[in-house]
């Protein structure tokens, strides 16, 4: 069978695709968080950063399409594998018993649904700017004194000033961190990077990463609501 066929049809091949697309998305959310943390710097930083991304033009669209493909493959295979897994045990046990499967690992499908809802909401909110017609007109002048760019700083402060949006955001990043709590280790195992010598270190990295990811993300809406990050003049 050809390479692509084996990847998309065999059990291990599809696990690789889950892991590889997961790795890409993991990289994306990490980069996205680092970008967002610039909210704690003077407003020109994050606005210049956003401008840099938008000026990538076709490149930005290529990146977006690549990420979209990864999300779609990740979701499609998750559904397919889950259906197959259910069919592999037609009759349940009379006594349910769990030996060591973590709660995070057992809630992957459920956490993913909230994360997906959040991604859609987030794209509608900031990328399409639905419900905020004025946001397209928010402009900001960069340090050079004449380049006018989108005022992302103001969009974020205004967006997170809405308590409901902030609460949803914190819940969603919390569940995404929880999804990653199983996802990171699972990805390493699937790609065959785990062994008896590395396991402990990799597990610690995964836990530390997930907590760090959650706390740093949650810090942004909390800082806005707490008045630490304000609309600039």
């Amino acid at each position, binding site marked *: 069978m050809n390479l692509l066929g084996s990847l998309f049809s065999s059990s*291990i091949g599809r696990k690789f695709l889950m892991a590889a697309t997961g790795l890409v998305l993991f990289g994306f959310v990490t980069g996205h968080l680092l970008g967002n943390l610039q909210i704690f710097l003077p407003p020109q930083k994050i606005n210049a950063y956003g401008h840099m991304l938008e000026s990538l033009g076709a490149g930005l669209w290529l990146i977006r399409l690549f990420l979209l493909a990864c999300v779609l493959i990740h979701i499609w295979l998750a559904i397919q594998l889950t259906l197959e897994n259910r069919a592999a045990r037609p009759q349940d046990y009379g006594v349910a018993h769990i030996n*060591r*499967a973590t709660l995070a690992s057992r809630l992957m499908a459920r956490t993913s649904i909230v994360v997906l809802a959040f991604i859609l909401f987030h794209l509608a909110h900031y990328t399409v700017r639905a419900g905020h017609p004025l946001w397209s007109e928010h402009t900001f002048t960069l340090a050079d004194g004449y380049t006018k760019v989108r005022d992302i700083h103001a969009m974020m402060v205004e967006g997170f000033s809405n308590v409901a949006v902030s609460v949803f955001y914190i819940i969603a990043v919390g569940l995404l961190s929880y999804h990653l709590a199983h996802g990171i280790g699972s990805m390493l195992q699937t790609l065959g990077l785990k062994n008896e010598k590395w*396991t402990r270190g990799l597990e610690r990295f995964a836990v530390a990463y997930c907590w760090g990811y959650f706390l740093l993300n949650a810090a942004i809406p909390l800082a806005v609501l707490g008045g630490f990050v304000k609309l600039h003049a």
Partner: protein
Amino acid sequence: MVAPTAKKLFSVTLRIWRQAGPQQPGKFVDYPAANVSPDMSFLELLDVVNDGLTKDDGEPIAFAHDCREGICGTCSCTINGKPHGPGKGIATCQLYMRSFADGDTIVVEPFRARAFPLVKDLVTDRSAFDQVQQAGGFISVRTGAAPDANSIPVPKEDADLAMDAAACIGCGACVAACKNASAMLFVAAKVSHLGLMPQGQPERDKRVLAMVQMMDAAGFGNCTNQYECSAVCPKTITHDFIARMNRDYAVALFREKFKPASNASGGAG
């Protein structure tokens, strides 16, 4: 009959899955068992219960067993939801009644997986494992006089690791415990035990590809890395072997694709 003992005897209720055949409906049936010695093995208790059933013209409970010393992998059933019952690193035949307390209800079920169809009561057909094994779980060697034991040097670490994998007795508990009825631990153990040895190298790629293909075809589920398998394995085989197989599979897949094949069509003349 229970052998005389100075230890305190106790009573339990066995709640056992009875099913006359693959097409018949099954259900749990309770069997009270009194005078249980803590030193009895669990299978001995089933023997005693079956004696009673036979005397009363009942149908004895069908359960699979053979060596009764943890080396053949035949005695496969799920006890209180856990394949091979409570305890770590033991097969059902190595489970003793001292693991239970007076008055306990012990629920006994067959291994449940589409790839392990039920034969009768607690007996399942696990020949899917044989098919996976036959797809590549061997090395091709010329038979003849026994080779000198040290003619192929094997590093001690590799030999030890290969032995860990080779300890798999093919019982199927890994499949039974996995929520997806995945056979990854079994197949990983078989792939690794040969893949770690110099004798296993010539067919290493072919082996992992063929065994995984057969595993998929047999109707096992897919691994979700929750490690229920290694938690119940009577030989405590680690799921690190699964990571090793994943790696082997990826390498084999790419090598298969890009390695040039010879055009020669056989020997001289």
